[in-house]
């Protein structure tokens, strides 16, 4: 008798084999993290149901099984290894196995050199990810699968992390994209993630076997894999049990089940997790706390009895929809707070119909929308005004604490905090690219553990030993929570621990404060998440200050929008809001299309209301709406890009030489183009980045945590090879030009040495000439000699004299290019000033010019009426000064100088673009912020990645402009 137990992250699988290795018992169930309990139940059951199972050879496998096996003295076998054993027996002719589990993804190459690969610390693209997405779509997995079958188009969704994906999907849903398309897109994202993350250049072909829960249950996911791989994969019988089977086959040590059960029982008793002090020492303490907060109430009014003008505010958040109706004195007459189930339009329609029908005499004088769905709702229902969320929240906060100096709002997946200085919003902190520590995070956990959120939160209040879970990504949190459960933490402890983690994430990661004083002393907290007393308590404890939580904490956006509508509507009689009749016959039709008017290829969702009113979402600029070229605001990013594209290939006797258009070629193209053209090469650079180009190179990326601009290089190299270019120049460069602004003039390690990665991982380069030697352009005198040595290795008959001349021309061209940038930049500044525009110094690295990297944020800024210039335009305008950090990178030194200069210019503000995963920017962002704040400037940071949530970017920019206006 052999027993194989596979304890995964979400399920527990078990097989029992008889002497002939035939399955006599099998089971598959979710363990809801009650691992030891479930294991015990299972063994108990086997002992009763399977004759002769008192003593058996047992082997435990699976990520969650490891710790238990160790402590309970049961043999353990690593799960990927177990899979291999099982496949070897059952499908000996398999070539590749793809197995997706709850939190793991694995690929096993069985033929042509066995290799096993497993996802790293990131759980993107796994079962947990699909579950999260299903929750977001409000669908069951079966429904998702069924809908995916009907899809018409695929959207690009980042699956690296559920969190990123959410920020892709939410705007899609808010813009009215169809769930069938979104479902299929989610599956495709999983496929891309698996292939990109695990194949790492190795081709997946031959007999492909699909294993694990998601691939067993979701036929459309298999289909999606088949399509991408160009294979017809198989999902064998018992595809859920391969790990358990492998464990069983491999088991050798006989275990007495009774003894094992005793060990397990003992194990569950241990509590070895890290804990922090309880939130409340006593019931009394809680009562005092609850009483203090119960005093902060919004005035109420009776809607049925109310006469006079009423004001409607709607806040369309990421997962919820909130609405408030106020009387003329700010009294709350009516409100809703509900989930938007993926589409805010029907929810609002329902509410409005209810309002009109129940209170026919209600006179709505003005209305406003805010939040993610602001524009959609404003257009759908003809609301009078729209305002950015931060302004709405500030407006509401002032009603409760007139001299408020800090507002923090934690909603479903956004966190917004801002300081208030001189009555204006000053410093805005938004969580970007990461929603850990938001409401949906707690919600997800509550659901996983089988509680509703309110109940779950209450449990935490009196936890004796809240678990210390750290603060970071939801996915990591999953593992931490599971670990804690295994170590005996109760649901109470976990609930409290999660609340602590939410708060710590907000304070230390998003706001980056080190003391309460830094935030101010008059703090208003709001957003649905603060309705949770545990979160509120931790927040106060962590900051050591009593804060104000209005009783309408979750409604503040809507309340603020209503107040805003009232303020803006002075004298207005009647809101433009559509009436009851129109609402009854309201229709909403969505068409999805791609804009072809520029390189960004914005995915447009065209919403048509009542067959007549149109609203286009997803656009960055006004082109698709107005069909005009953009507003005339100067844009240095556009200029530089166009300037670079002027360096066209000139046929030369030495034939074609390719350069990948990425990383520092975005600045050095003039240099290298001139250099090699002068030497008689026809210099061809790869085309501008695109999604397609990225996907083509994706499978050769060895490190999935490197920044997106670096990952793009793989696509550029692939594209050059596709064009049949056999000679590619991509030099390694430890050093950049010395601009004498810093202590050293390095490139960052990734920019400096990425050619090495290309050389080692792009197999197609074999047999081609790939020049990736180490080059020192910073030593102008030595350069020709050294470069000549390098070129001699690859080409015949290039004389040193030629190289010297070419170098001379290259340095001159580079200087000319930079001079042009500065001159035109100056003209743009002058023009902007003449036209009384705000000037935004959009700062980053030269390669942030790439439209695929910056996602058209420059256009977003100009569409808001401001001029965009780049940091290199002004970085030479200040004297060298000392920074608080070691100033040793050429590009980063420009940031500090630009920030310093912006500090002296009243009409300039700096917005910093930061690529996700850029380790160097962990240092520069703090320093740039400090330099700006010393000069009383607002610091705005925008994190960008493969995919960027432009909605959040827009909030940030609009808030900035709103603050500047005040």
């Amino acid at each position, binding site marked *: 008798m052999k027993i194989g137990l596979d304890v995964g992250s979400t399920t527990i699988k078990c097989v029992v084999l008889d002497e002939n290795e035939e399955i006599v018992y099998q089971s598959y169930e979710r363990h809801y993290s009650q691992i030891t309990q479930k294991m015990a139940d299972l063994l108990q059951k086997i002992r009763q149901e399977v004759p002769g199972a008192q003593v058996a050879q047992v082997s435990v496998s699976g990520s969650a099984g490891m710790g238990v096996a160790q402590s309970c003295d049961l043999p353990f076998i690593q799960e990927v290894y177990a899979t291999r054993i099982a496949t070897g027996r059952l499908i000996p002719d398999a070539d590749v196995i793809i197995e997706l589990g709850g939190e793991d993804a694995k690929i096993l190459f069985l033929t042509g050199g066995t290799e096993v690969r497993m996802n790293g610390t990131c759980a993107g693209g796994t079962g947990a990810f699909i579950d999260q997405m299903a929750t977001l779509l409000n669908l069951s997995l079966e429904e998702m699968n069924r809908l995916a079958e009907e899809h018409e188009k695929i959207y690009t969704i980042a699956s690296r992390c559920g969190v990123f994906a959410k920020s892709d999907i939410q705007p899609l849903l808010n813009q009215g994209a169809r769930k069938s398309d979104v479902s299929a897109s989610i599956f495709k994202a999983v496929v891309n993630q698996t292939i990109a993350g695990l194949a790492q250049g190795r081709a997946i072909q031959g007999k492909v076997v699909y294993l694990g829960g998601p691939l067993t249950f979701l036929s459309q996911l298999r289909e999606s894999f088949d399509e991408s791989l160009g294979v017809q994969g198989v999902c064998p019988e018992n595809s859920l049990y391969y790990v358990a089977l492998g464990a069983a086959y491999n088991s050798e040590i006989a275990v007495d089940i009774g003894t094992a059960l005793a060990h397990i029982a003992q194990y569950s008793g241990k509590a070895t997790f890290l804990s922090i002090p309880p939130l409340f020492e006593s019931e009394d303490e809680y009562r005092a706390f609850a009483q203090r907060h119960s005093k902060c109430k919004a005035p109420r009014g009776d809607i049925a009895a109310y006469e006079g003008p009423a004001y409607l505010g709607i806040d369309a958040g990421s997962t919820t929809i909130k609405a408030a109706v106020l009387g003329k004195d700010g009294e709350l007459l009516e409100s809703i707070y509900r989930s938007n189930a993926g589409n805010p339009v029907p929810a609002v329609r329902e509410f409005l119909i209810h309002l009109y029908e129940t209170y026919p005499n209600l006179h709505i004088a003005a209305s406003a929308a805010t939040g993610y769905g602001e524009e959609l709702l404003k257009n759908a229902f003809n609301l009078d005004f729209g305002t950015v969320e931060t302004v709405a929240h500030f407006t509401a906060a002032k009603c409760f604490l007139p001299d408020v100096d800090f507002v923090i709002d934690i909603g479903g997946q956004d966190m917004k905090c801002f300081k208030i200085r001189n009555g204006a919003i000053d410093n805005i902190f938004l969580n970007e690219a990461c929603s850990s520590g938001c409401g949906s995070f707690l919600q997800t956990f509550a659901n996983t553990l089988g509680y509703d959120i309110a109940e779950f939160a209450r449990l935490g209040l009196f936890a004796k030993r809240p678990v210390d879970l750290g603060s970071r990504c939801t996915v990591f949190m999953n593992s931490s929570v599971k670990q804690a459960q295994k170590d005996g933490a109760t649901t109470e402890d976990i609930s409290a621990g999660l609340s602590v983690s939410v708060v710590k994430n907000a304070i230390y990661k998003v706001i980056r404060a080190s003391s309460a004083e830094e935030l101010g002393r008059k703090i208003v907290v709001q957003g649905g998440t603060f309705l949770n007393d545990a979160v509120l308590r931790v927040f106060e404890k962590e900051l050591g200050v009593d804060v104000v939580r209005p009783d309408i904490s979750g409604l503040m956006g809507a309340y603020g929008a209503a107040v805003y509508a009232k303020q803006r509507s002075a004298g207005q009689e009647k809101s433009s809001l559509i009436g009851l009749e129109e609402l009854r016959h309201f229709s909403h039709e969505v068409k999805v299309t791609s804009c072809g008017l520029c390189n960004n290829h914005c995915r447009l969702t065209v919403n048509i209301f009542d067959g007549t009113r149109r609203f286009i979402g997803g656009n960055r600029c006004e082109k698709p709406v107005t069909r005009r070229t953009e507003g005339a605001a100067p844009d240095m990013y556009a200029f530089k890009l166009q300037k670079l594209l002027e360096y066209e290939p000139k046929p030369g006797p030495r034939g074609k030489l390719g350069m990948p258009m990425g990383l520092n070629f975005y600045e050095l193209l003039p240099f290298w183009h001139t250099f090699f053209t002068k030497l008689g090469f026809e210099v061809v650079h790869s085309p501008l980045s695109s999604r397609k180009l990225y996907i083509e190179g994706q499978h050769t990326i060895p490190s999935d945590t490197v920044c997106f601009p670096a990952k793009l290089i793989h696509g550029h190299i692939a594209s050059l090879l596709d064009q049949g270019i056999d000679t590619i120049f991509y030099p390694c460069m430890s050093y950049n030009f010395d601009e004498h602004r810093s202590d050293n003039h390095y490139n960052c*390690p990734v920019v400096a040495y990425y050619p090495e990665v290309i050389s080692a*991982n792009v197999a197609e380069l074999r047999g081609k000439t790939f020049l990736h030697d180490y080059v020192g352009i910073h030593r102008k005198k030595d350069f020709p000699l050294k470069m000549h040595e390098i070129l001699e290795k690859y080409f015949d008959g290039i004389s040193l004299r030629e190289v010297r001349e070419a170098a001379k021309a290259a340095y001159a061209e580079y200087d000319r290019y930079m001079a042009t940038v500065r001159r035109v930049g100056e003209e743009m500044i002058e023009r902007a000033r003449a036209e009384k525009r705000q000037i935004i110094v959009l700062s980053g690295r030269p390669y942030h010019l790439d439209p695929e990297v910056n996602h058209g944020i420059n256009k977003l800024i100009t569409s808001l009426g401001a001029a965009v210039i780049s940091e290199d335009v002004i970085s030479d305008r200040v004297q060298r000064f000392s920074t608080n950090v070691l100033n040793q990178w050429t590009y980063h030194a420009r940031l500090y100088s630009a920030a310093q200069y912006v500090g002296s210019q009243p009409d300039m503000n700096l917005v910093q673009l930061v690529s996700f995963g850029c*380790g160097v920017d962990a240092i520069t962002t703090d320093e740039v912020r400090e330099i700006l704040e010393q000069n009383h400037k607002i610091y705005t940071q925008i994190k960008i990645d493969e995919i960027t949530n432009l909605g959040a970017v827009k909030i940030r920019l609009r808030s900035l402009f709103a603050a500047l206006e005040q």
Partner: protein
Amino acid sequence: MAELEKSGLQRDKTGRILFTKEMKEEYTILCPMMLPIHFALMVDVFRNCGYKMELLTASGPNIVQEGLKYVHNDTCYPALLVIGQFIDALKSGKYDVDKTALIITQTGGGCRASNYIHLLRKALRKAGLEQVPVISLNLSGLEHNPGFQVTLPMIRKIVAAIVYGDVLMLLRNQVKPYEVEAGAADRLVERWTQKLCQQFREGKGYSQRAEKANLRELVKDFAQIRVDRTPKVRVGIVGEIYVKYAAFANNHLEDFLAEQGCEVNVPGLMGFVLFKIDNRLEDIKLYGGNPAKYAVVNALMNYVLGLEAMMIEAVKTQPCFQPPTPYFEMKKMVKGVIGYGDKMGEGWLLTAEMMELTEAGYENIVCAQPFGCLPNHICGKGMIRRIKELDERANIVPIDYDPSATRVNQENRIKLMLAVARENLQKKLERQGKGPAAKQPET
């Protein structure tokens, strides 16, 4: 600020607090821990030179919390830990914060690590501990302090400590997994550490002659420990220097591997020292530069190479030990794989170490780095595929460390690597017609 001036702290023109000669008398200097054997010896060198130095050995969750609080969370894990450890110590009440200084190394390379000292000062400011002077320990002439000078004799002594540390670590790793009497290797390490410290205090043990004699004796002592050499899975550890060495940073990786029944090989510090010196020569070779500077650096290089040769010779005196591969042989191995100009972080040396380990029979490798480590995107994870192509024996698993990466996930991945390793070992033994490998504690 006014109060600080009153307290008589001296500053340089950028406002940095100087470590003065008076401070040398009064202040305790705290030093972060990385390699237990080496650092114990090195701290002794400083003490003998009149500095009151203390090694920080505290670990625990509070350090991570302090780090998260005072350092940008996207900064690399080592910075977070080292700074967290300092702040934790300063806040612990164990030290008079007005009479305590901190010391931290600064390489001046193109990686973020050169910025640790600045991040530390920022963190101190945020934590209200601005009065604590921070000493930069570097060989690049960064940040002068009147009360702290690295003199030539000190450099010699520190290098001697590295030599001893490397050999002790190497032999311990080769003996401990096979020792018959549990704890014998560790006891010998302890005895020798004390013996060497004693010699250092007496001003002995630094000369090349003394080193040579000591090393031979030491190697002989280790050779006398009774061992049972039943084959075990042999695992090499490479990676970002701090995460690779500091047990606190890598979740006690070496102990975990030992529990799994492995022999562990962690390449020593000597290679890194040579690498950092050699980088200066390579820079001049690649990009041009002052021949006089080249000559000076080359002289230093040769001096350290001499020590390396001596160290290897000493290990070779006992055939039961596997000596480390000489630096220049490792350098040769990566020719055509990665360029010698890749010098940030561990640069090409890391790639070389993986290839050397594979060659030397430690083909099962954990490549450890902080999450998002910039240089390791290139020379670590970026080279694994290439290494496997060149030598299919290589069985490498990259593991990322950061405050929220869970131990379970890390260990699970390492176990996968080990499962493959065991299978390979078994096959190898069968081919050689030998008996089975040591039974692994399969849990």
